[in-house]
């Protein structure tokens, strides 16, 4: 029989002992200081150039306005720039520095930038070979000849995967906070951040905009990052079930995730691309009021698309895993 706890314990143990999580922490420990250093350089440069943050924001508005005046910039870009200008103006009017550097802003920025590529990559490092590695090593034959139903084995793998995804995101945030705090100070939890920007055509609808403490903002962001990471995890689990080799399943998933970021930057005229999971991964962008890559996308839309993909992938994974003959 094997009760649930024992089965999940097995799967968590295997991922842990393969040192997957340790490697991820190591990668974060190398990467974060690099970004912190880059951020420090930028902040330092700004501080020398502009004694007042207002002039920085004003400069950015002016830059974007200039870009808007140019004929060579495509219409999609202009729409985005116009929205950005409007948003910056809003911050300026309210007297809040959108770039005030502290550990919390750095963490929020890092997560927002990591959600489309880096977080999915970390998820794939754990999810991609959950099933295919058992097949490649032959241990699947031991696993599936024990008196436990196959769906329970896959479900225990899914639970373990969920636990690891839920651990990876807070770990990333915590390491970001701890490391960047050395450079920028550990304050900033209470600083107001504006959320609720909505895009209507070319204009930003600010009627629902309100300020939330940055700590709350960070939590909201982490929730959205978790959602998009879980979608990637579910699809990776399916690919891991379908493909025989761990390498093949990792490459397939990486190709899908990377093509998503490429598509997002050029698919504005291909409207049905918005139903692909990989262009919908950037959920935190909605919080910030960044215009979506394709018109007609909204937070609700993206959540729905991701949910459908995730559930569909899990259904396929379970259907195949429980039925398929293990022939090699």
């Amino acid at each position, binding site marked *: *029989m094997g009760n649930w706890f024992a089965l999940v314990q097995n799967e968590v143990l295997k991922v842990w002992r393969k040192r997957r999580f340790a490697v991820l922490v190591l990668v974060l420990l190398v990467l974060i200081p690099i970004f912190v250093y880059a951020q420090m350089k930028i902040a330092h440069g700004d501080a020398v150039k502009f004694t007042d943050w207002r002039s920085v924001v004003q400069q950015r508005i002016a830059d974007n306005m200039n870009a808007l005046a140019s004929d060579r910039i495509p219409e999609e870009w202009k729409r985005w720039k116009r929205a950005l200008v409007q948003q910056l103006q809003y911050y300026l009017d309210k007297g809040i520095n959108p770039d005030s550097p502290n550990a919390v802003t750095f963490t929020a920025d890092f997560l927002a930038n990591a959600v489309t590529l880096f977080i999915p990559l970390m998820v794939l490092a754990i999810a991609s070979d959950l099933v295919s590695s058992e097949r490649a090593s*032959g241990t699947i034959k031991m696993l599936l000849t024990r008196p436990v139903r196959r769906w329970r084995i896959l479900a225990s793998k899914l639970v373990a995967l969920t636990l690891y995804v839920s651990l990876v995101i807070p770990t990333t945030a915590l390491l970001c906070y701890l490391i960047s705090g050395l450079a920028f100070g550990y304050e900033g939890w209470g600083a107001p951040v504006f959320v609720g920007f909505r895009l209507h055509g070319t204009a930003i609808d600010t009627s629902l905009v309100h300020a939330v403490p940055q700590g709350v903002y960070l939590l909201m962001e982490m929730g959205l990052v978790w959602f998009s990471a879980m979608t990637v995890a579910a699809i990776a689990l399916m690919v891991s079930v379908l493909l025989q080799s761990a390498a093949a399943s990792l490459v397939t998933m990486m190709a899908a995730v990377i093509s998503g970021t490429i598509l997002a930057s050029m698919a504005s005229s291909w409207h049905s691309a918005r139903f692909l999971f990989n262009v919908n991964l950037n959920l935190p962008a909605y919080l910030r009021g960044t215009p979506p890559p394709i018109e007609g996308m909204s937070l609700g839309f993206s959540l729905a698309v991701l949910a459908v993909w995730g559930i569909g992938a899990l259904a396929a994974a379970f259907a195949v895993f429980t039925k398929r003959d293990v*022939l090699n």
Partner: protein
Amino acid sequence: MKMHTLEREVVLSVQNVKKVVSGRTIIRNMTFDVRAGEVFGFLGPNGSGKTTTIRMLVDLVRPTEGAILICGEDVNRRPERALRHVGCIVENPEMYPFLTGWENLEHFARMLPDVRPERIAEVARIVHLDHRIHDKAKTYSLGMRQRLGIAQALLGKPRLLILDEPTNGLDPKGIRELRAFIRELAAQGLSVFVSSHLLGEIQLLCDRVAIIARGEVLATGPVERLASRAVSYTVWQFDRPEAGRSLLARSEAVRLVREDGHRIDDSALAALPGAIVTEMDQGTIPEWIRRFTDEGIGVEAVHRTAPSLEELFLKLTEGETVG
């Protein structure tokens, strides 16, 4: 009542099993029973459907037709009940190399109902792995991995042990130990199902045997009875081989076997220069020796080959290559 005890005898029952994979029938009408406490050999050349059958026994592959019952439970319908009575190693004993032997056993123990740490220590001792049990499995030799695999299979005190080509890759000493070990387990009432493409192996190990080829059972029965149906040869060596041969050739009761007509191991014959292989009534050997002596032909040696399953096998499969 009698029916009931008879049913309890049978630990594994394979009933009219058929398997079709992408339009090709791999297994046709496979039927056999394995009883409690017996070592059952499953003999066939590679590609004869052995591995597919074993995989069907443990629910890795679903039969297209037919049923497989272990202790009366259908393996494919109720795997969580039927497989409780089974320990198995399908092909190689694959373990998690990044876990220690103990952790591997713990891992599989968690998938069984109440296996205590004492039981894990006990099976480790049974397979003589207790001194290395806390080392990583990747540091184990093949023989040790094999033993860890058997320890894993024994964890849940199964009634049926399924071993797929268990001697593969083992050295002669390892093979001898394994053989003794399997006999010991059977003596304790465990049924052991052993597949092999090595006939000698099965002959040494098993009580009963099923011989299969091309996805069908050709014959089932006690090893001795099947073996007695096989031919045995009488091999002669003379100081004057030509004279001896012509004398033998003159008799109606003796059949001279051509070089490609027998299945005696080439390496065994190489040690017997000028050997003449015959088929004859072995009761007449003393009489023949007298005749050769009378004719002035010196008999250097006479060998009787033991009846070999290989001969029988080749008869049944009509020359399909073994190995």
